[in-house]
């Protein structure tokens, strides 16, 4: 009986010691080969960049998910840039008091931001096995000038807006940016 008690005490002590050792560390997991351009998105004054990632058992779908993710990010950035341009026009020309002009500008903004991202291209992409799935990484680029050009075209298309804005400094700046984009395109 005494032997059993000693044994029981020893078992309890060992169990206590194990308990005091704290939680068992989690096994290390592999991060995979995350492309460096995904973690450090490049910066270029002429381009907007968007990264995206997606997983699927189907490789094509993984890349498609990654591409749409990246393009949606670029589209959102374009929208923010166009809205900031609208603010500049508002400060200079005063769109706020004119309901018709505001509606026209909102329409132009919608066209520019939901319109074709022509020239958006996959700059880099990577596809890797991730367990039973494929994981796709995409770096998408879009020339900034293309968005400016689309906005300028929309402003010019509407005679009222064109007449109102063309003398403003913001319009001239926009035109100058678009000219620079044209030159840059030729040099590509």
């Amino acid at each position, binding site marked *: 009986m005494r032997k059993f008690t000693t044994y029981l005490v020893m078992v309890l002590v060992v169990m206590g010691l194990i308990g005091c050792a704290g939680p068992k560390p989690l096994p290390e997991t592999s991060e995979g080969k995350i492309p460096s351009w995904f973690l450090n998105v490049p910066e270029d004054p002429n381009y907007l960049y968007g990264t995206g990632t997606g997983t699927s058992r189907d490789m094509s779908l993984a890349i498609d998910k990654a*591409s*749409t993710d990246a393009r949606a990010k670029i589209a959102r950035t374009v929208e923010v840039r166009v809205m900031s341009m609208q603010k500049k026009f508002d400060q200079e020309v005063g769109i706020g008091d004119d309901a018709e002009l505001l509606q026209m500008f909102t329409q132009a903004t919608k066209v520019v931001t939901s319109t074709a*991202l022509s*020239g958006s291209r996959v700059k880099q992409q990577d596809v890797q096995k991730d367990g039973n799935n494929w994981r796709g990484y995409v770096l998408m680029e879009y020339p900034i000038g293309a968005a400016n050009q689309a906005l300028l075209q929309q402003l010019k298309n509407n005679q009222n807006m064109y007449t109102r804005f063309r003398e403003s400094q913001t319009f001239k700046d926009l035109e100058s940016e678009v000219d620079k984009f044209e030159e840059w395109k030729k040099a590509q």
Partner: protein
Amino acid sequence: MAQEYPRWFLNPSDLPCQDIVAGYAKPSFHLDSSVNQAVLSGAETYVKYSNSHLTGGEAYWSTEAGVAWMGSEITLQYDSAAVAVTAVTLQPIDTVYSQDLVIVLLSKGHCELDKRSRKRVAIKDLDTPSWINSIPQDGRYLYAMGQAPKYYYEISSWIEAEERTLKSLAKSIGVEVQAMQKVSQAGQEIRHETYSVSLRDVQTVARWWDLNDGVFYVLLRMPKNVK
């Protein structure tokens, strides 16, 4: 023989010939049947690459649990009646046979292959090409890369990689993006992309098979001045 290809297959843009295309077929009991099939497949690719129109759309639902595919529809329109006519005008330049695949190089005009271009090279002996990591860019062409996993039939992998590259090329020409975010307790987003693009004079620049990851790559290009 497997995983060995002539240089013209891996780097067709290095050839001095214009208007070339590769056709694929599965090997059959009668070799000439496979070759005929490969010629027809090459003619179809030639017609598609010369002039086609790709329309489509796809939608995804992104939540914290991941991105779910909601649906897609892709239509490639080309003159299918021109395939048989084109097959007659294309001239076979070289043919490669393996256990899994028959490949025929076809040319619209005169094309003389040198010894180096015909030479079979094993993929494992070559370095991974740079375009796998960084898609080329120049003033004359739009480039796009696509890939496919290794399927039981090798031909399926090459064909899917080419189809995917064509779609990627179309999207780089113009794609309409609509994305709607909803943020409540959990964020979610619906993404929708549509495209309707004409493709002209598309050329195959290079092909690669990553033996480690089992991924097939194709690089295509299209002249920028084509509208």
